[in-house]
Structures are given as structure tokens and as C-alpha cells.
């Protein structure tokens, strides 16, 4: 029998042995030669050989245990110079994971993560609890009404006049402050013997921004010499009334009656009403909610040709912070502007905000 046949004979005997269950007595009929049979018997014991990396892996586990640590299989393989390419990292390390694991570090990491999650969760809870709670049982309604000046029912171009029956026209100066009511008309040469001092005003929306100088007068006049004008009624001008201007009335400007400022219209007589296109509702104030205050806040507003609200005035106050809430909301409103002859114009109008509790 040549050497080639011995290799085959041994391999066939090994195949026969491998086909039998472990620890079973294999027949080894394929091994005719005694020496081959002996080698096949030796081979049958090799079926119990440990895996290649087992000894080194266990060694590393023991080393780490001796040092008070846990160890992973991958680290052991690294030490033995071999690599298991099927190994995937795992959370707990033991099961073929990629990193040595210190149990204390793992516990610390888990604790830190728990604290972070709690802190983030607590943040959400705290922020949520500090947000104002909107009570759905409370309702705010808003009503838009045209503005009717206290005096006069026509289109307001503003204007007024008056005077002290002087020989020359009213002198140049700053227009007096606008106010809802006139306590005293504007005059340049005041009565020095007066007992009650009141600021001179004209009747117009009070917070209109007007140019001011130290000397009041008619801004359209050319005369520098102090004069109240030839008119009568206590104002400054050539006609009757307590206003400042060329015509009769208690306002300021070239128009008549109360009001001011050419270009701001009242609704009606060909001037359409502006339409709110963005009107968030005002909120209830905390004070009003606590005291269950309800009612109306009436605002006077100028709606510009650009649709924005200006010159907001509280005409009827409710207090408890509701006025401020109403102003705060209405300032953000946007309108489709009023139109006159197809062109957008600024108008004054009332906005009534109803605060109700149900």
C-alpha cells in the first residue's frame, strides 16, 4: 500500500468516525491497517478539542476577574491575536461585545443617563406648569364700530378757529395738545389773574403726534407777532370757536368742527369701513380673572391706509389690566383699509372689546 492510499484510508476512517455520534464507538471499518486504525482512534478523541480561542479567552476573563473587572470575548480574541469577524458590539459586553466593561462604570453611566432624562422631563413639566392656563370658559369678543367724534357728524377734516377779536391774524406757533374735552381754549396772552390753571388744548384724539414748540399758535400762520387773531370764542383764528385755524370750530386745521389733521376720515359719506384681516383675541389678565371682572373696553383707533392700527386711545376703561391686554392685542391687528373713491384712506374707528366670563 503506497503512502497516498494511507492518507485516503485514514481520511475515510475519519469520515466514518465523524458520522457517528460523539463518544460513540466508531466501527472504523475503513481502516484496514492497524496503524491507520490507531490514528483514527486518536482522531476520535480530537472531536472533543476546545475551540481555538477558548483557552485564551478564559484566561483573560480570569485575569480581569482577578483585577475585579468583567471582560468581553472580543478583548480576549484581540489578546490571542485572532479576530471573530462575526462579533457585533452588544450593550452588556459579555455576549461577544466589542469593549471591556467595568460594572461600576456601566452603573455610573446608567445613573447619569437616568438623571439627565429626569432633568429634561422635569424641565418640560415646569415650563408647562408656568405657562398661563387659558380658561375656555372665558371668552373675549370684539366689536368694530365707526368713530363718531364728540362734536359733529360729518367727515372730519379737523379744524377750528376762534380768537380774541384782535386786529391781526393769529400768530405762528405750535398747535396745542389734542384732548377729548377742552377745558380752556388756546390763547397766546393768557389772563394772568386766573385762579385755576389748565393746559390749553384742542378737541382731537389726544395722543396724536404733533410738532411742539414753546409758543403755541397756528402752525399755518406766517405772523411771528403774538396774537390770538380777530375771531371770537377764545381760540386762535378768524372765526368763532375755541380751536386753531381758519374756520369755526374747536379743532385744528382748515376744516371745521372738531378733529384734526387733514387726511384722516370718519367712516360714512363714501368712506368704507375697514375690515379686520388679522385680529387675535386679547387675553384675560390674571387680576381680572381672579376678581372675575368682565365688561367692555372701548378703544379709539386710527386705521392707516396701510391697514395698521395707530394712535390707540382707551375711551372706556375697564381696569385690572384688561385695557392693556386690549391695547396689546389690537396693536397687532391688520386691516383691509377703508376706501374713499377706490383709494385706501386712514380712518378713525372704535373698537369695543368685550371681556366675558361664563
Amino acid at each position: 500500500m503506497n503512502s497516498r492510499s494511507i492518507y485516503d484510508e485514514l481520511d475515510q476512517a475519519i469520515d466514518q468516525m465523524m458520522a457517528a455520534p460523539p463518544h460513540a464507538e466508531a466501527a472504523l471499518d475503513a481502516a484496514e491497517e492497524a496503524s491507520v486504525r490507531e490514528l483514527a482512534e486518536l482522531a476520535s478523541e480530537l472531536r472533543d478539542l476546545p475551540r481555538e480561542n477558548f483557552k485564551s479567552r478564559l484566561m483573560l476573563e480570569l485575569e480581569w476577574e482577578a483585577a475585579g473587572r468583567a471582560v468581553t470575548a472580543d478583548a480576549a480574541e484581540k489578546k490571542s491575536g485572532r479576530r471573530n469577524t462575526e462579533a457585533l458590539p452588544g450593550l452588556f459586553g459579555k455576549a461577544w461585545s466589542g469593549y471591556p466593561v467595568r460594572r461600576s462604570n456601566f452603573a455610573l453611566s446608567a445613573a447619569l443617563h437616568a438623571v439627565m432624562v429626569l432633568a429634561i422631563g422635569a424641565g418640560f413639566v415646569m415650563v408647562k406648569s408656568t405657562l398661563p392656563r387659558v380658561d375656555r370658559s372665558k371668552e373675549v369678543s370684539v366689536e368694530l364700530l365707526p368713530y363718531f367724534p364728540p362734536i359733529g357728524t360729518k367727515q372730519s377734516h379737523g379744524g377750528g378757529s376762534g380768537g380774541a377779536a384782535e386786529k391781526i391774524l393769529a400768530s405762528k406757533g405750535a398747535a396745542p395738545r389734542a384732548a377729548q374735552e377742552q377745558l380752556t381754549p388756546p390763547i397766546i396772552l393768557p389772563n394772568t389773574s386766573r385762579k385755576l390753571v389748565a393746559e390749553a388744548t384742542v378737541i382731537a384724539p389726544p395722543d396724536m403726534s404733533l410738532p411742539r414748540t414753546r409758543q403755541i399758535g397756528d402752525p399755518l400762520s406766517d405772523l411771528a407777532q403774538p396774537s390770538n387773531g380777530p375771531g371770537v370764542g377764545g381760540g386762535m383764528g378768524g372765526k368763532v370757536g375755541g380751536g386753531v385755524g381758519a374756520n369755526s370750530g374747536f379743532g385744528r386745521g382748515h376744516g371745521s368742527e372738531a378733529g384734526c389733521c387733514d387726511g384722516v376720515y370718519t367712516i360714512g359719506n363714501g368712506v368704507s369701513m375697514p375690515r379686520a384681516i388679522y385680529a387675535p383675541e386679547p387675553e384675560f389678565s390674571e387680576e381680572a380673572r381672579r376678581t372675575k371682572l368682565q365688561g367692555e373696553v372701548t378703544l379709539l383707533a386710527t386705521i392707516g391706509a396701510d391697514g395698521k392700527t395707530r394712535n390707540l386711545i382707551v375711551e372706556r376703561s375697564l381696569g385690572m389690566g384688561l385695557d392693556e391686554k386690549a391695547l396689546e392685542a389690537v396693536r397687532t391687528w391688520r386691516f383691509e383699509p377703508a376706501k374713499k373713491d377706490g383709494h385706501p384712506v386712514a380712518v378713525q374707528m372704535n373698537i369695543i372689546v368685550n371681556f366675558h366670563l361664563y
Partner: protein
Amino acid sequence: LNALANLAELTSLNQERRLIEAAQSDPSRFAELYENNFHRVYAFVSRRVSSRDEAQDVTAEVFHQALRNLGRFQWRGVPFAAWLLRIAANALADRWQRAARGVEVPAEEAEIENDAGHTDAAEVERRAMLFQLVDRLPADQRLVIQRRFVEQKSIREIAQELGRSEGAVKQLQFRALETLRGQIRSGHE
């Protein structure tokens, strides 16, 4: 010759005692005891369980227990391996009891529990030597043995993996087994 053999055994025991004492004071020295006894424990266990995985599990359990309980080990002139095999026998008995609650442990297996230190000691030594010798084979022969008997691959599969002919692999297999047989014989002589 007997006197020389006794002297060698005594020297070996003294060395082992020093190793145990060193490991008791410094657990990192346990590695040397492990190296000296790994194949012995594995050979003892692998003969008594049905799979390689189970043999590895029990072997690992034995050494972990030994490391944990090393401080309580008292030297009585008995080889350290006897203590390890006692742990192994107890671990196997526990496994059998857990696996078959209420089922009587076979007499042959119960014998291990009763006399682990002396039962088939020679056979254990022989198998331990065989497994140890595989580690000392030339790399190509060791690779063929591992693929053939551990991974249970065919000669054709191994040849493809190694890029060699089937005849060459069969030859390596034959030479490896022949080497092992020769070394075991010389070890016993």
C-alpha cells in the same frame, strides 16, 4: 529511578505550593496555575458532557470558582489539580441535578462525585496531554486539525480555504495525527 521520580514529584509539588501561595496573596498569579491545569480540567470535563459548548462552560465555571475560593484552599500535599477536579465533579453533579430534577444520577456519573481525584486519572492525563500537544503542532497541521475536528469541515472545504490540494490537506492531517501519536507514546514511556 523510583527515588529520582519521587524527588521530581516532590520538587514539582513544592513549586506548585509556592505558586498557590503566590496566587493567594496576589490573584493575578493565578494565571500560572491556570496554564498548568487547563487541559487537565478540560479533558476531565469534556469526557463527561455531550457537547463542546457544555465542556467549555463547565471548564470556565471550574476556574472561576477556583479563583474565587482560592483563599480558602489549604495545602495538604495533594496536587492542585485534584482540588480543581473536585470542583469540576461538583459542577457536573449540579448540572445533572438541575437538568434532570427527580431523575437519579447514573451510577457511573455519581462515582465521579465520590472519587473525582482518582477516577480514570491516567485517562485524564493522557487526554490532557493530547489536547496540549495539538497546540504545539506546526501551524499548518494545527490548522487542519482544528478545521477538521473542531469545525467539522470536509477535506475539500479545508483545501479550498487554505488554497491547497485535497491530497496535500490529507497529508497534513495524516502527519499531524502521526506526530501526536508519537509524542504521546514518548510521553508515556
